């Protein structure tokens, strides 16, 4: 094992880590928007909307991410849409993450005590105000720790976008491995970057959880 291989490629790995973070961040943010819509349709009183939301979650949680990514990639090609691979990559991550985020949001909504909505009705809040001022703010804060956790999972899952040719951490580690004939060092180096990012995120998540718990106790 030659640790200097990792040092030599430090610049490339840092850049690649940036791509990994950017792709995952785009995936989680777009996924949140789609996930919120899916969640809204799942809790809707219209049966067909609720069923549609349920089907979305079932499909996107049931099909392996690699299959989803390749599906989107080939789907765009099949219909002659010449879009860069990054669109398929971010789109795949976002669509898949949306299913998980929808469930996180639904769980958080269910965790808001029933009495809150009833109290709001009793106080004469309008329907939309109950959502905007009472339910959503509470549900969102409950969902922050699991959403950070989902971000960590997505960051790891983003290694799969290497198969559609995005130069993120895993892809760049592969390239370093094949250029230097030192796979051990290359993958340990890439792995250390993932670990560092995830530990930082986990620390941030723990902090957020403590802060929110302290606020709730007040």
């Amino acid at each position, binding site marked *: *094992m030659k640790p200097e291989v990792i040092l030599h490629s430090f610049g490339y790995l840092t850049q690649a880590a940036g791509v990994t973070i950017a792709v995952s961040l785009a995936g989680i943010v777009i996924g949140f928007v789609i996930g919120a819509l899916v969640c809204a349709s799942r809790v809707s009183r219209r049966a067909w909307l609720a069923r549609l939301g349920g089907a979305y979650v*079932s*499909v996107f*949680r*049931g*099909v*392996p*991410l*690699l*299959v*989803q990514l*390749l*599906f989107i990639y*080939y*789907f765009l*090609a*099949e219909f002659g849409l010449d879009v860069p691979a990054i669109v398929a990559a971010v789109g795949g991550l976002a669509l898949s993450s949306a299913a998980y985020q929808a469930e996180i949001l639904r769980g958080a909504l269910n965790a808001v005590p029933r009495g809150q909505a009833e109290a709001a009705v009793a106080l004469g809040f309008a329907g939309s105000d109950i959502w905007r001022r009472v339910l959503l703010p509470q549900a969102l804060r409950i969902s922050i720790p699991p959403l950070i956790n989902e971000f960590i999972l997505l960051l*790891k*899952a*983003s*290694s*799969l976008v*290497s*198969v559609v040719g995005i130069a993120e*951490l*895993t892809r760049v*580690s*592969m390239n370093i*491995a094949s250029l230097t004939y*030192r*796979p*051990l060092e290359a*993958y*340990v180096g*890439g*792995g250390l970057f*993932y*670990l560092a990012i*995830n*530990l930082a995120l*986990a620390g941030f998540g723990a902090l957020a959880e403590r802060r929110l718990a302290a606020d709730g106790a007040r």
Partner: protein
Amino acid sequence: MNPDVLWRYLPSLISGFGVTIVCWSAGGALGMLLGFAIALARRLPLPPLQWALRIFIEVFRGTPFLMQLFLLYSGGPYIGLRLTATEAGVLGLGLYSSAYFAEIFRAGFASVPRGQIEAATSVGMAPFDALIRVALPAALIASVPSIVNMLIVLSKETVVLSIITVPELMYQMQTMAAETFTAFDAIFAMAVFYWLLVEVVSRIGARVEARVTAFLAREGAAA
């Protein structure tokens, strides 16, 4: 998709499905055994061992599965670990899931009320007996839902093995797609197939879970 194409490739697809099932069950079994051993070892009062196990769990849960596979498969030979793709795949699934299973079993043990162990020792059970006969059954039952969930996650991870050329279903399907220029059809079929597989496995898992924890519901109703 052209049915003739599918028919011609059916044998290789079936063999691929077999490899998927073998990797899944072997990797899952390995991960569960290793994870259980880790969970037990974490109860030993040996600080250096605790740190080592903590690092093991953090590393395998904090890095992508694909990265671990690459390290094992192409980095392995440099430390005298020469594995075929399938061996590396099974070992990779086992190591990766063992970190998660270790935490599942640890949580299971943590969920057993302290009083139960204390009661067992106060009626004269040796600490080892209290662990095996009192804490263990309760811990295992408490872990069942998480175990089922992890096995479902693992079934989806088997697809990643195709990247290191393990001849499982996804790999065979991609070979077919490349040879017959049917990429879109093949990937569509894959999506449907895996969705059905995960649905079926989830249903079976829910059944098993209900069955194993049925007595808890009865106890709750009686109380």
